């Protein structure tokens, strides 16, 4: 009960902090629209039939980008503000302190999903029809949570590195590519597809598209949720070891 309360209080605090930065807010509003615009122009020029495919892909790209970059930058921000040491010095499990940070970030990614679909509809006339609205919502929720949990695993793994923000950025574009957001993974060699299978965004993307096109999203959503739980369990399991590595290497503070 206490742990749930800790996560909820942390979530409230993170959302409050994110909502109070006008600079980050403007960037958060504009970035997904830039990415979506580029994707729509590219598809409009060469594959008009695939525009709804691109619209859904660009929408999930926003969720992923919000989470991956912020998983690294959240850690950096805590380090920069000198609060990371205080979080570690507190007796609460570090994993439960980090979890709300990344979940909050990926939940904010929901905005970019809505904004991208709306942007595509208003400016590019892309109509995304959703055949199974309830399953679509389920697939989106599962994808957001699983991506948040992937961000959590990244944040916990990055704690010992002072350049954690760079690691977050490093993952952003490769995942765009290999999770089939804009290009189906069939175009890649088999070993790349195998990497994609270990990534929740790949399954989440499939589930969302299946729900939109009237297919069977549940198996993909199930895989996405299962991978999310794996990330969570692994993150909790390694958090103490990662923290001890940071305590050994003296990387919790900036200097």
């Amino acid at each position, binding site marked *: 009960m206490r742990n749930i309360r*800790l996560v909820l209080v942390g979530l409230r605090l993170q959302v*409050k902090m994110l909502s109070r*930065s006008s600079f980050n807010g403007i960037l958060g509003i504009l970035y997904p629209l830039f990415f979506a615009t580029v994707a729509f122009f590219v598809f409009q020029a060469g594959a008009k039939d695939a525009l709804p495919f691109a619209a859904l892909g660009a929408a999930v790209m926003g969720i992923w980008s919000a989470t991956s970059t912020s998983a690294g930058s959240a850690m950096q921000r805590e380090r920069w503000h*000198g609060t990371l040491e205080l979080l*570690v*010095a*507190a007796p609460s499990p570090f994993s439960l302190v980090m979890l709300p940070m990344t979940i909050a970030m990926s939940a904010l990614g929901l905005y970019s999903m809505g904004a991208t679909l709306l942007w595509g509809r208003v400016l590019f006339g892309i109509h995304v029809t959703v055949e199974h609205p309830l399953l679509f919502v389920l697939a989106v929720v599962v994808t957001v949570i699983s991506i948040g949990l992937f961000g959590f695993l990244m944040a916990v793994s990055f704690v010992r590195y002072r350049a954690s923000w760079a690691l977050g950025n490093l993952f952003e574009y490769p995942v765009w590519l290999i999770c089939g957001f804009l290009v189906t993974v069939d175009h890649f060699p088999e070993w790349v597809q195998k990497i994609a299978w270990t990534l929740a965004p790949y399954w989440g993307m499939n589930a969302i598209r299946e729900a939109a096109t009237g297919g069977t999203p549940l198996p993909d959503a199930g895989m996405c949720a299962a991978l999310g739980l794996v990330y969570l369990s692994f993150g909790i399991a390694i958090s103490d070891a990662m923290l001890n590595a940071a305590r050994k290497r003296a990387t919790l*503070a900036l200097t």
Partner: protein
Amino acid sequence: MAVVEVRDLKRTYRTTTGVFRRRAMDVEAVRGVSFEIGQGELFGLLGPNGAGKTTTIKMLITLLIPTSGTAQVLGYDVVAEAREVRRRIGYVFGGDRGLYERLSAYDNLRYFAELYAVPPRDQKKRIAELLELVGLSGRERERVEGYSRGMRQRLHIARGLLHDPMVVFLDEPTIGVDPVGARELRAMIASLTDAGKTVLLTTHYMFEADDLCDRIAVINKGTIVAEGTPGDLKAIVADRTVIEIETFGVSEDTIERVRAADGVTSVSIEEREQAQVLLVQSPAGTELTQSLLSLLDGTSVGRVAAREPTLEDAYVALVGEA
């Protein structure tokens, strides 16, 4: 039984230099420090920048793992029983950082109350008590980004006391705070031991240590060079005299000449507005004033006075001569 027990604690940092041919280098920040702090004692750790004060404190509050040696707080090992130690200690550091700027003081305290498992039904009351104690009542709903340095520091102290810790670690808590604010903070620190808490304080300010500490350890280059009550430390230089010479624009060469003069034990410089005051220590009974003034020939000299040594002089002697 000692509340804090430190035995031969060492900490080495590994740094790398070079871009293409990177070379690793070990820097010994703390080289075998030992001390004990008793129940209800206010223990000061004094030393210049880079002496190892903050590294020592960070090992005790479980943020750094010692390279070797042992440390126990309230009987719990800081490495093997880190969580038990964390439950029972409070940590406050000086400076602007360590707070969520975009949140109000209340939100900051609320979050840390949760992190320290303060029972939900007690949180509101505890936060109100602490805000009252640190003089921030009525300002708690304002964002921290609008707070002055002194207000932030008081908020830090409130944060560190949320869970009513038995041991409080204060790392330069008055740094950068204006004199009035610093005086209020010192009164607050003194009240901690009155409430039965054990306190470890690191500071640069001698008068602060003299005023507050029951015992002091002077740390320099990672080792403790002296330990005792403020009176014990002053006794180290009791057989000395201090001559204060106010100068204007004194050169490094001249200072070196003074330092090398017969009978001079140590020289330190204190900047006071436009003046540089040379604090020259010498054995009591040695008459040096005339010879020092002749060495300062060509330098503009103001007031000259001899006085009894203070704790600061003891510190200068310990750190400067080590």
